[in-house]
């Protein structure tokens, strides 16, 4: 069970075929964006009450019902499932993302209100997992959205999930879980990556019929 906080300095993955050259990240260190003062006090309440929205396309969704219900009971940490992105603080991307569903995840993430955190679940959003050579599945979610925490494993067990939530809570308390600020600062960079990959979902054959 290996847990890893989001990369402090954003190492550009040149080996990844999704990577686009041209625009540089403006702010690479999360220490520049750290919460201070009053925000640190509010962060205490934020970490104690995290409402999550799970984006269930992958197999990671299977691990969440036992995490939520009697056996592991994540509600004791104040974490509960929510129905819509407007109400949620956490977005869980539970597994692989096809290019089409990436678009929906981006919509969902942008609909959420600050402060918000994104958790990448399992190995698929990290490096593609078993879909590493698929033409429809993205390999690195971190190129399109700022990941605050990755929980590795295929799939992570409920213990690993709860351990991950606790790691995120520590990050929030220290004021270092600031992916949403990084997204705002580097929006141009993220947008360029998103556009480049989403262009691939455009139909090859244009029938000329306007829908």
């Amino acid at each position: 069970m290996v847990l890893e906080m989001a990369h402090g300095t954003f190492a550009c993955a040149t080996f990844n075929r999704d990577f686009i050259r041209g625009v540089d990240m403006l702010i690479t260190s999360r220490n520049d964006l750290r919460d201070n003062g009053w925000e640190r006090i509010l962060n205490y309440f934020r970490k104690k009450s995290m409402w999550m929205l799970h984006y269930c396309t992958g197999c990671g969704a299977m691990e969440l019902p036992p995490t939520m219900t009697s056996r592991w009971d994540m509600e004791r940490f104040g974490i509960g499932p929510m129905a819509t992105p407007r109400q949620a603080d956490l977005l869980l991307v539970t597994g692989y993302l096809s290019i089409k569903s990436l678009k929906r995840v981006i919509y969902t993430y942008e609909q959420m209100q600050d402060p918000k955190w994104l958790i990448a679940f399992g190995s698929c959003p990290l490096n593609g997992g078993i879909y590493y050579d698929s033409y429809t599945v993205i390999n690195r979610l971190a190129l399109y959205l700022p990941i605050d925490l990755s929980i590795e494993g295929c799939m992570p067990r409920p213990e690993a999930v709860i351990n991950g939530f606790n790691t995120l809570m520590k990050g929030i308390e220290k004021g270092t879980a600031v992916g949403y600020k990084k997204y705002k600062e580097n929006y141009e960079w993220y947008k360029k990556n998103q556009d480049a990959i989403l262009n691939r979902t455009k139909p090859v054959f244009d029938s000329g019929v306007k829908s």
Partner: protein
Amino acid sequence: MIVLKYIAFALTSIIVGLLFMGLGRKYSARIHRRYGPPFWQSYLDVIKLFSKTSISHHWVMDFGIMMGLAGILATIAFLPIGPFHLFNSMNGNIIIMLYFMTIGYLGMAMGVSASGNPNSAIGIARALTLMLGYEIPFVIVVISLIFINKSSLLSVMVANQAGGFLHWNMIRYPLGFIAAEMALQGMLGEKPFDAMIAPSEIASGPMVELSGKMMGLGFLQHAAQIFLETAIITSLFLGGSSNVWIFFLKMFVLYLVSLSINAVSARFKFENAVKWFWKWPMALSLAQLLIVIL
């Protein structure tokens, strides 16, 4: 002076309501054999919600959400809380309270309809339809109590129940109490009458578009609503109390009964729920009215 007293009333209703919600979550968790959140979880949730950014789709949305909370808090002004009350001449006028309570729902309806999300429109339509269901039996029960006490003041009804357990309206008019208890389940929006919330069907209904501070106001409204509705039933049937703590305890017992039913029930379709309300609580309340009048 009366303004300060009113502020104390409003704050008490919210703080006690949130405490009830927190203890209720712990209680439900124990029924599910979970550990459950700490009982102060609701306070943390509210503070967190107010620390978030929020998005509004229309000025009517802001206005409606605030009107929802204001309607419930305005009703609290007429509520006798244990020995305390605001207005001597209207010490718990139940007719005014029933009118004012509706303002809260209508404000919520206006606010969430302005958000433009179809799910919230469906949710609030269900909530208002369900209100049609439970208000009628509840009003019939209230009419029979007004008939008995020759007064619409809660304080008079409480005074007439003085003198021990056997004088409570709960014991003297059991059919009416059961009908009111069923109506309370609908008022609180607990299962089996939570079709308006239904997170898995219509994505939490009225709350779909509420984010951050709006959701916080909605949370406070729900807390005040729990306080108000259990307090009304306590005054009507459980003999009220001249001690605030015993009054809160009676309210909390009512809330726990409601939560116990909630924890083991499935959800009614809302049209079935309305039919159910017009059949069983209605029959019980009409029977009670007949017994009282004849």
